[in-house]
Structure formats: C-alpha cells, structure tokens
C-alpha cells in the first residue's frame, strides 16, 4: 500500500500546480491511507529509503553536533555515529545507528548493522557522558547486529551483553528514540533507557520479519504474515508498556516533509528530559533497572 500511496502522491504532484491546493490534496490522500495502515505498511515506512535516517534525526534535533570516532580498542565503526551537542541548551551525548540512503552509502555504513566495535564505541561515548554528567539520547534505526564472521570473532554476543549491562547502570538520564527499524539485540544494546520513544512508523522487534518467518516457519517469504503476529508497531508496543511514548507522524517521503515530526519528537524529548533531570543518579539507575526487571515477570 505504501508504494501505491507514493505513486498517488507523485501523480498528484505532476498534476496539481497550485501549491496550496497541492498541500490540501496531499494531506487528504495521506490521511486516507494513513488510517488504513497495517503493520506491514509500517515496516515498509520504517525502512523506506526516503525516510530520514538517524543522522538526519540528530542533525534536526541536536544543535551544533560534534561527531566523535572510535572505540579506542579496534576501529571506528561507521555504522554507529555519536558525539555531543545541545538539545536546546542542554549539552547531551547522542548516539545513532547510521543507515545510508544509496547502496554506496549503505555499503560504507554496513546497512546500519554494527559490529562489536560499534557497540563498544557507543559504550565509550556513553561512559564519557556519565563522567561529564550529560544525558544520553540514542537514535535507533538498525536491522540488527551484523551477522558476519568478523563480528562473531570479535565477540558480538559479549559486546551486546556488555552494553546492556553497562547502559542499565549509567548514572545519567537515557532516552532512546526508535526512528526506523529496531531489530533484535542489536537495537536493545543501544536502548536500555529511562524512556523509550517510538516514532509512530518505526518498529521494534525481536528479529526482522524475514528472519522471524525463516526461523518459525522455515520460509522467509512469509515475512508479511510475520508482521501481523509479531506486534512490532509503536502502538502495540506502547500498549504493552514496552514503550513510553509514541510520536504521531505525518507520513512523509522526504526530509522536508518530516519537519513537523522532528518538532514533535524534539518537544517530547525535551519534556521527558526535563523530568528525568530532576532525578538523582541513584533514582535514574534504580528506575531504569526496575523497569526492565519487571517485563514479563507476571506469572
């Protein structure tokens, strides 16, 4: 349906030259489609090549970002970007998974799939945030951790586990934003947070729908079916109390049209951060750990 929507919008743009009318008609079409989106459509939106990537989110929300490199151990994993900048006037550490828009970019950024050095780079930046008492904002858009020989060799499992543990005990506020795809332990390793915010059309799941279908039904092509049962949309996860906040989205296929979405997200982050910054470091750790401690504990 997403492709259909895109085509209808493109068609409209070709026909309607009156800008005001165009805007109105666009909105009408989008709202018609928007009310009918099924999880499969959301997955397509979350992964859409024209959807802003984590770097776009960072540049639209963080003022004067300075990007830092390296894990100080092995490499600078280009699938993880991070550094420091201002959220309004508060210095924060930001971390994002880096997806490209073109194939070339994606090869460079490894399709947003971090290797152990990526998680260790993120952890290094987070530890530094803690030293300087800076809140941490993570922007997540990743199919998951890279499933490759070298990643296994350098301890993908250890790196993810270490990040989860260390993130859980950081004495600064952590807010995680799911901007697109949030897949598997690779997403979790960057999102053990005090607040989890999902963009309406982002997803968060135990595995990619393709992987899920392959494992459960030994048939990756049934991934569309998987999206229906996985409960991977923001609304579903909000209802499960996994996610604290969902940011309503204007459906858009360009950075420009995403402006209102950025604005809403920024407002939400600031609001959440204001609340978190009133807490002591002890409270921040305790609440964060307790939250995860309780998930799925009812018997």
């Amino acid at each position, binding site marked *: 349906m997403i492709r259909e929507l895109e085509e209808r919008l493109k068609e409209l743009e070709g026909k309607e030259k009156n800008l005001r009318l165009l805007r109105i008609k666009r909105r009408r079409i989008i709202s018609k489609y928007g009310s009918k989106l099924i999880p499969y459509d959301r997955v397509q939106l979350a992964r859409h090549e024209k959807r802003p990537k984590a770097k776009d989110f960072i540049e639209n929300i963080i003022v004067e970002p300075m990007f830092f490199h390296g894990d100080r151990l092995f490499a600078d994993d280009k699938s993880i970007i991070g550094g420091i900048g201002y959220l309004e006037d508060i210095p924060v550490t930001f971390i994002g998974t880096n997806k490209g828009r073109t194939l070339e970019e994606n090869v460079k950024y490894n399709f947003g799939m971090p290797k152990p050095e990526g998680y260790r780079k993120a952890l290094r930046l987070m530890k530094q945030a803690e030293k300087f008492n800076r809140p941490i904002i993570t922007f997540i858009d990743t199919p998951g*951790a*890279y*499933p*490759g*020989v070298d*990643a*296994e*060799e*350098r*301890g*993908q*499992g*250890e790196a*993810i*586990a*270490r990040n*989860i*543990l260390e993130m*859980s*005990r950081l004495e600064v506020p952590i807010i995680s934003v799911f901007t697109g795809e949030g897949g*598997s*332990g690779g997403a*979790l*390793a960057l999102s*053990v947070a005090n607040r989890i915010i999902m963009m309406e059309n982002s997803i*968060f*799941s*135990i*595995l990619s729908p393709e*992987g*899920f279908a392959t*494992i*459960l039904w030994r048939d990756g092509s049934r991934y569309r079916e998987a999206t229906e*049962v*996985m*409960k*991977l949309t923001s609304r579903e*996860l909000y209802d*499960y109390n*996994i996610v604290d906040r969902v940011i309503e989205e204007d459906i858009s296929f360009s950075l420009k049209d995403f402006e209102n979405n950025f604005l809403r997200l920024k407002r939400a982050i600031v609001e959440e951060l204001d609340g978190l910054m009133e807490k002591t470091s002890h409270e921040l750790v305790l609440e964060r*750990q307790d939250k*995860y*401690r309780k*998930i*799925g*504990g*009812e*018997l």
Partner: protein
Amino acid sequence: MEQKAKKGRSIISIIKNLRRFRKPSIRAVVPERLFEKCDGCGELVSKSSVEKRLFTCPECDYHFNISAKARMDMLLDEYTVINRLPRFTNPIDFPGYKVKYRENRKKSGLKEGILGVEGYIEGIRLVAVSLDNSFFMGSMGSYIGEEVARAFEYAGKRDLPILVFSTSGGARMQEGIFSLMQMAKTSIAVDRYGETRNLYISCMTHPTTGGVTASFASLGDVILAEPGALIGFAGARVIKETIKGELPKGFQRAEFLRDRGFLDDIVHREHMRDYIHRLLKLHGYRSCRI
C-alpha cells in the same frame, strides 16, 4: 517435573533422595541399546562407558547433550529446586503458541527449559542454574528470563556464588518483544548480583546462541565452556547468507572463542566439578559441613 515434589508454588521442596525422579536424565543416549553411535567421531561406543565418563565419548571426548537435571545430579552433592512452577502465558497472543508449548512439554517431559537449584559442591553452598535445550531448544521466554533473574537475586540475597550452565537456541520467537527484553532483565540481574561481590561462573554448553549469548551467559566473572560447544550470537545459516561463503574451520566453537579472548577456560565435563570447587574455594567460599 522436578517441581512434582512441591506442595505449592512458593514452597521449596528439599530433595535429598535423588531416586525420587522418574524421568531419565540422559536423552542423547538411548537407554534401550548397549552401544551408541557417537556424534563426534561416529564410533560405536558402549553406553556404560559413556555414562561413566559423565556422558562424554571415550574415543573422542565428544560431550553428549544432557538434561539440566543430569547436569545437577553429576555436579552437586545434593540440591533443592528453587524455580517456581511455570504457568503458560502468551504475552503477544501468538497463534499456536499454546499447542506448541504443550507439545514441547510432552516431548521433553519438562515443564520448561530451565532448572534452578540451591545445592552443594563438596559442602560449599551455591545456586546452580541450567537451561535445558530439550524444551523449546532452550529458547529464552519470559519464564526463563524471570527464573534466571530470580536465581541471581536468590543467590545475592544469601551471599551465595552462582553457577549457570547455558544452552539455548536464542530468543523464544513466540513471545516476541517480551523474549527480547529478557536479555535486559537477566543482564540487569547479573549487574545487581555483581554489587554483592559474589562469584558468578558462567558455563556455556552446546549450543549457546542468540540472546542468551548476548546477555547473562557472556557476563560471568569467570566464563567457561565445554569442549567443542557451539557458541555464538548469529546463527551459522544467517552468517553464511550474509557473507555468501563458507565458514572458517572451527568457527563459533569453544576453542575458537577461547583463542579470541572470550572464554577463561574450556573444561572437560569430567573435571567440571573439581574445577568449580577450586574456583569457589579460591573465592573464599567454604564448606558448611564440618
């Protein structure tokens, strides 16, 4: 099934007479035959010799798959089950989960894929946990995550060391995001336990993969593995697809991981009890018996 002896859900049943258990401890070795073909070397080996060597092959040291209960039986002087009884829950209302769950119970004779106990090794009190891959491939659903976390809390509260044997196919897909979150829950339990400065020994057994590798199993103060155990995060099939090629020899095996810095040691099953015992003593734990 271990919970059969229990009177209620929160009552701990002290099991001193191990003969009470009726289920067979070992599944890999079919009990009806005298000889068994070893999965490691392909030789026919006598069942009794394998059993005597704690279910390892006398020819090639292949470590046969064993149940959580067999693990405890061979390792501990005596023990008490501390798990709560599992109750089926279907957190994301996954179609067919209940049926599958029932099938797994029937097939494995287990109620879930984990056994947590309090017990003794040479008189030293400890908490021991083992996953059991005959139930749902040892996949970590909410119950397993919860019981792992509770075992760490149980041990921490009592200043006991904890020993965890993992074997897992990863996350339990049918529990979706709730399964994923068990990685965080168990890792946080390890962190909090660590604050008590007690010893956590993690031992990875064949196979340990996915979310279990990427959470508590990789966070031990001391990390051990059984020889030849497959240990990794991503599955071999996925990796092959990604790299479009063959995997290096010995890839994701215990020996491979040790050389790459992720295991403190590889310990033969026959030496495990002694090894753990020495570790416990070196960390200041003493026998309660006089």
